[in-house]
């Protein structure tokens, strides 16, 4: 029986762990938090089918019960030592021997305060999509002043595809998240006007385009092509944005009650540290560098170290689960060569 250590107990980590345990390996998950599920715990429902995130979480929790997977919660990796073909992983006072390691450390949401001009944490009623998911879960979509918002702007590409934030890449899931949230709000508050400000909409996966179409046809959500340049507060406690409608070529100002910033996905702040610890390469963006884009997304630059999930690149829940399974297969193939 081979020993495998998984770093991170989010969706990617747990799914990889289960797939490997299924093949008869002894698997340990080291998770920094006190529970499994990672960022998904903060979400309310998922695109494109509005599946409750708890359903995915339940699947994960039920699946892990079938296997004898060792959980090491509230722990982080302190030291990594080579051990023959494998490694010793030190955490707390414990040392785990591992024939293979899977990094599934996940991502960080872009810190929207870094785009100060958008007023996050400066003005009331400027939220990120994560804040809105929390609002969905609590069932309260009112503004901080306790009123139902009459007009909401959803701002796409905050911290993605933005040279000024060092993030050149597309986080790809925010477009459809914005559309999903717009529809949820429209269902909840039918009288509210909702505007999405986008550069271009990347509806890349199955059912996404239909969702976008439905947002316009059935929910009266308006899409304006233009980046929001600045947000300010008005004397009557509302918000004002400056932007340009680039299709009509006109600068515009708009008064609003709420702004939702679709913050992009970034490599975790400590991904580089983790990469150094395990001596694997990262990309300029901070995400882990796959050995081959087409053939080995989960294989990293060092023998026996693998990756799964959004620490490789931004991905949706569906893609994360697929990617976790694919990485598990690559780990199994590797273990056979030992």
């Amino acid at each position: 029986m081979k020993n495998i250590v998984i770093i991170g107990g989010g969706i990617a980590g747990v799914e990889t762990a289960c797939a490997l345990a299924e093949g008869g390996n002894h698997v340990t998950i080291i998770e920094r938090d006190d529970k499994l599920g990672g960022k998904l715990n903060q979400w309310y429902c998922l695109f494109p089918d509005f599946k409750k995130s708890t359903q995915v979480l339940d699947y994960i929790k039920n699946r892990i019960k079938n296997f004898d997977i060792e959980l090491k919660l509230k722990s982080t990796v302190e030291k990594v030592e080579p051990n023959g073909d494998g490694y010793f992983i030190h955490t707390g006072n414990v040392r785990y021997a591992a024939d293979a390691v899977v990094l599934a450390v996940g991502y960080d949401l872009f810190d929207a305060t870094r785009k100060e001009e958008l007023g996050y944490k400066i003005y009331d009623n400027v939220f990120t999509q994560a804040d809105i998911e929390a609002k969905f879960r609590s069932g309260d979509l009112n503004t901080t002043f306790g009123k139902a918002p009459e007009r909401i702007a959803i701002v796409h590409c905050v911290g993605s595809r933005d040279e000024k934030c060092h993030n050149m890449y597309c986080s790809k899931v925010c477009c459809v998240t914005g559309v999903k949230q717009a529809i949820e709000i429209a269902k909840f508050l039918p009288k509210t006007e909702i505007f999405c400000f986008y550069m271009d909409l990347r509806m890349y996966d199955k059912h996404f385009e239909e969702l976008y179409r439905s947002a316009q046809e059935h929910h009266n959500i308006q899409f304006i092509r233009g980046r929001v340049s600045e947000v300010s507060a008005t004397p009557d406690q509302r918000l004002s944005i400056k932007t340009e409608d680039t299709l009509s070529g006109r600068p515009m100002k708009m008064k609003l009650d709420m702004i939702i910033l679709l913050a992009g996905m970034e490599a975790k702040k400590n991904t580089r540290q983790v990469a150094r610890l395990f001596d694997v390469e990262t990309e300029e963006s901070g995400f882990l560098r796959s050995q081959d884009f087409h053939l080995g997304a989960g294989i990293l630059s060092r023998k026996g170290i693998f990756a799964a999930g959004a620490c490789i690149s931004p991905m949706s829940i569906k893609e994360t689960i697929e990617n976790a399974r694919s990485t598990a297969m690559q780990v199994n193939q590797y273990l056979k060569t030992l």
Partner: protein
Amino acid sequence: MFSDYFYYPFLIGTIFLFVVVIGRFVKWFMGLSKIDKIRVRIGLFSMKTLQSVWESVREGLLHHNIFKTNKMLGYMHMSLAFGWFLLIVVGHIETSCYHGSMFFPFQHSIFFRYYVTEPTDFPGHAFFNYAMEILLFFVLSGVMLAYFKRFRSKTFGMKRTTRMRYGDRIGLTALWLIFPVRFLCETFTAGVYHNGSPIFNGIGDAFASVGDLNPWLNPLWLTYSVVLGVFFVAMPFTRYMHIPAEINLIFLRNWGVTLKERRVNTFTLAEVYSCSRCGICIDACQLNLAGIKNSQSVYVLKNIRNKNLTDEVLFNCLLCGKCQEACPVGIDVNKLRITQRIETTKQYNSSYDYLKTGKTRQADIVYFAGCMTHLTPSIKQSMLKILDHAGENYWFMDENKAPCCGRPLMLAGQYDAAQKLIDTNTKMILESGAKRLLVNCPICYKVFKEDYQLPGVEVLHHSEYILDLVKQGRLDVNPSDLRAVYHDPCELGRGSHIYEQPRELLNTALTLVPMAREREKALCCGGSLANTKISMAERDVLAGKAMEEFATYAPDLVVTSCPLCKKTFAKVDSLPVKDLAEVVAGAVERKV
């Protein structure tokens, strides 16, 4: 006999040099604006002329400013310039004493040892012999350093030295040869006639012991005359033109001639030709860090002179002013660049219909936040909090809609467009009846101070304004035990010479940690609007390096007083960055 005419190359060179240099000075003077010509006429008979004479000695001969930056480089320039000057002056006095008269063929003083070979005993003969030889050694020491610098610039503590053109190589070679050849002429002559001091006679004897020196004398003196002649002919076309041009510049500058009209005139040339290409500006430039190596001031000046300046070079500059601060000649590089930009930029026929004067409001003080502050709303909020706290009757001029201050257009060379914005803003400010204009952006501050005509309106940077409030007791600042470093914004520090007010103000709220490179030597954040060619990645390098340097002082936060610096540094995401308005607003809040 050819030897009688051996000094002709020197003579021709000298005449040529004088004609060209005087011709250029006249051309430059004629090309000045009317006002500048009047300034010269008034200045000519004032103390400023005497002052210029002293400055010419200090900078043209002693090179005091280069000494301040780099001792070795200073000595090199001084030994060459001052040494050579003394050789000419002392040589002339020596010849006068020999002839017992002020009037003698002038080649006698230049080639004294060639002409005076017989034993003589004019007054001070021995002294002059020693003096002239020691002076020659002094100059030679500078020449040796110059050889050394060319091949090993690092010895001088300089990371880089200037690249040369073909013509410069001819001038440089001639200059490098002049004094070694003179040394050989005089020692060989002394070896034959013993007409030097015991030093040169001794060296001459040593040479004589190897072979007969007599056949060498005429060719050597001719060579000396030729290298002098070549150097003088080459001088106006090489960087050595800086020698006369710098003196000319010192006088013009002291008489009050500037580039203020923001239009290219011949004063530009007077400045361009004064550049000695010493290379001090290259090391002062932060763009090196980002691998940008062709747009430093010395290259721009060279390109203007050679008429091959490209926009790629002209606009790849932060206009941070670090090189200007370091320039030993005091060339006003920033203004020069802006003038060139105005000259080369196409004035776009953009529409300014939107510049209808908006509503004005009567107030005591006008607050103009500016574009960058609107992009850093926490600074804006802090400013409004402070204004409210002080109970000021203010008008927030660009709260909803107002033109830009005009400085970014100015920096991009769009002078006419900038003027349109300036006119609109001026009208609005004057209509408000306010006596003070408050800005918290140094970019706005500089243009309001320098390019606006706002009679009766005092332009205040928020560091000055808030400090006043504190001093008047209108604002109570609650001190904290935070440690901070203060970053001088280029436009406020080197651009407007405001260094002390922000520090005095910040000291009331927290503890400021002094840094090695601050005030005039402060780093640029890299975010400057003036550079339209630099890439975002290159900007990030500059900001990152500066933040690394701040971090070595282990501060709790970095404080600056420019919204653009704040925004640029905040991106680095290593230390918290705040504007001083935020620091003060935070400290005021705690007490209330």
